[in-house]
């Protein structure tokens, strides 16, 4: 029983950064913007979070710094694509490339330094309940944030007027503009929200998952988060399910490596990436589903005419 609980806990830890980054990107894409810079914003969050935690000694400050770092970095993308109407695919790619370089440079002095882990929740009486105690009341704080965030985004997108407006912008920015909606302002806020989420996801990596700074420690998770949004056909609860499936694949291959299964470790390590490809193929085979759910103006630049 204990082993099952432990495995479930590690799956949750592996799924949390994917979930947070993907939920953020989902809001961005729902507003019609395709930000391929998730990987870059995530790694910036990771280095910012670790750096702040290392310098101040408080992982909580690290957490805030990770969020701020992701948000500020995403602003760069927002200015380029929204104010200067640059190609979103190319700009997102350059955000990732810049993020990987910048984080490597900023993190040079943190390599090999011990970090402090965000403490797990510990509620006397509740956390010690057998089995469900640790699952429900004994995880790291970002886990709870990720679940709350998913619920909040679901509510925001589908139950509020502002959420409806955001989705309408994603489906037709010209119509939304004609109705007097501030397309660019909404998109700015969406992109910054996505950046903050990616930063938080990065913070989870360097403050919870492996509390240290390793270059390129995001290891493609930002890209997997992007794939998750497609996989989830832009629905928050499906992102949640997808993130946990991927978390399970990620943990599964680690356990398989630890058990010494006679398959080269590199093949097991490549499973999450191959799984992403397979999942994308399966989901895109159903053309109607993707066509119906893809925000219609996704990735198209918008220049308001006045």
């Amino acid at each position: 029983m204990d082993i099952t609980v432990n495995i479930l806990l590690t799956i949750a830890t592996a799924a949390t950064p994917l979930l947070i980054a993907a939920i953020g990107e989902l809001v961005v894409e729902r507003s019609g913007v395709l930000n391929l810079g998730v990987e870059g914003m995530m790694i910036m969050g990771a280095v910012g979070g670790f750096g702040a935690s290392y310098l101040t000694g408080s992982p909580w400050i690290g957490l805030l710094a990770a969020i701020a770092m992701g948000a500020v970095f995403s602003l760069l993308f927002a200015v380029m694509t929204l104010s200067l109407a640059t190609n979103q695919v190319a700009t997102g790619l350059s955000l990732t490339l810049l993020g990987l370089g910048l984080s490597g440079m900023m993190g040079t002095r943190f390599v090999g330094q011990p970090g402090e882990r965000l403490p797990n929740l510990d509620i006397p009486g509740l956390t010690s309940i057998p089995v469900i105690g640790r699952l429900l009341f004994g995880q790291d704080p970002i886990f709870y944030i990720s679940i709350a965030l998913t619920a909040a985004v679901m509510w925001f997108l589908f139950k509020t007027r502002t959420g409806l407006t955001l989705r309408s912008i994603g489906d037709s920015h010209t119509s939304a503009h004609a109705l007097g909606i501030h397309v660019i302002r909404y998109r700015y806020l969406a992109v910054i929200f996505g950046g903050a989420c990616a930063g938080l996801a990065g913070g989870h990596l360097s403050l919870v998952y492996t509390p240290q700074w390793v270059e390129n420690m995001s290891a493609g998770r930002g890209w997997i988060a992007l794939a998750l949004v497609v996989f989830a056909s832009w629905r928050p609860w499906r992102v949640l399910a997808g993130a946990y499936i991927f978390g399970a694949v990620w943990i599964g291959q680690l356990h398989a490596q630890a058990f010494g299964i006679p398959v080269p470790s590199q093949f097991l390590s490549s499973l999450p990436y191959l799984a992403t490809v397979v999942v994308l193929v399966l989901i895109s085979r159903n053309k109607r589903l993707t066509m119906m759910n893809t925000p219609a103006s996704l990735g198209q630049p918008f220049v308001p005419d006045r």
Partner: protein
Amino acid sequence: MMRLELVKRPQRSALFSALSPFIAFALTIIAGAIMFALLGVNPLTAFRIYFIEPISQVWQLHELAIKAAPLILIAVGLSVCYKANIWNIGAEGQFILGGIVGSIIPVLFPQFEGPLVLPLMLLLGMVGGAAYAAIPALLKTRFGTNEILTSLMLVYVAQLFLDWLVRGPWRDPQGHGFPQTIQFNDSAVLPELMPDAGRANWGFVFALVAAVLVWILMSRMLKGFEVRVLGSSPRAGRFAGFGLNRMVFFAFLLSGALAGLAGISEVSGAIGQLQPVISPGYGFTAIIVAFLGRLNPLGIVAAGLVLALTYLGGEAVQSALGISDKVARVFQGMLLFFVLGCDTLIHYRIRLIGLALTKPQGTAKLEVAPKLKEAR
């Protein structure tokens, strides 16, 4: 509040089309100076070490050519993809597969020597890269799967596959346990162009030839026209009878083959054996090269040399000033940002709208406004 407003130009500005890479480079230099100052280094000293010292001697120019060759080869292929609005961002993986497949002969059949070895290796490298690029192309045409994500995911798979090969079945038994293959024999090594002057090899010539050939293809042949039409207006392309699916394959196979050629040239020329890591991110840097070169093969040659210099400069400041060589990646990322930003100037005029929002500005548009009000 300050606000930017883009005003569409009636036609694209030829002036900014030519100037934008230079403006972008200038802005990168300014941003770089600020960065060096923040790192506590005199920007002038840093720039001298970064941009001038690495190319002040002949042998160093050869090093520049070694770094530029893969960048140009890959970027020339990518430019065709991006012109056609097809997003192959997995060139790094195709580069690696080209290196692996091209190495089959020298690693598995080291006794095979002679003048046939190299051409076969190069051919196999191109086949390897093209075959790996065919996967995202097939998935895109067959199932409509997003090629950005699949081509990128395959990069990680390729890196792990190479890692497994050189640590496992292809490891040199006499290599003292180092994760690398045997050294290629002489007939499997890409010859140097001028052995007396420096290390530059035939890879650089391949890059120049590829650039010229693709330039001819894009500007003088129907296929190039097809690429441009499908890229700017797929609908118009369909009316003209150009097949989008065939174009996806064409672009991926061409760029994959060139990336594969770059991979085997690097392995057989600059390295001489397979190692766990054979590329310092050439496949990704080439994306920057493609955009900095304005997706024009001849521009890409120049851009490739500039980006190659950022690699050399990064190594130079690391050894001379103790700054992380990641500074090269930062320069490359900034450069791409500024290039994309400056490209906006080609199609738009930028107006800064400040606090003077209430003050009418003398443009034709504002003269229309009162009339509209009257009409209501």
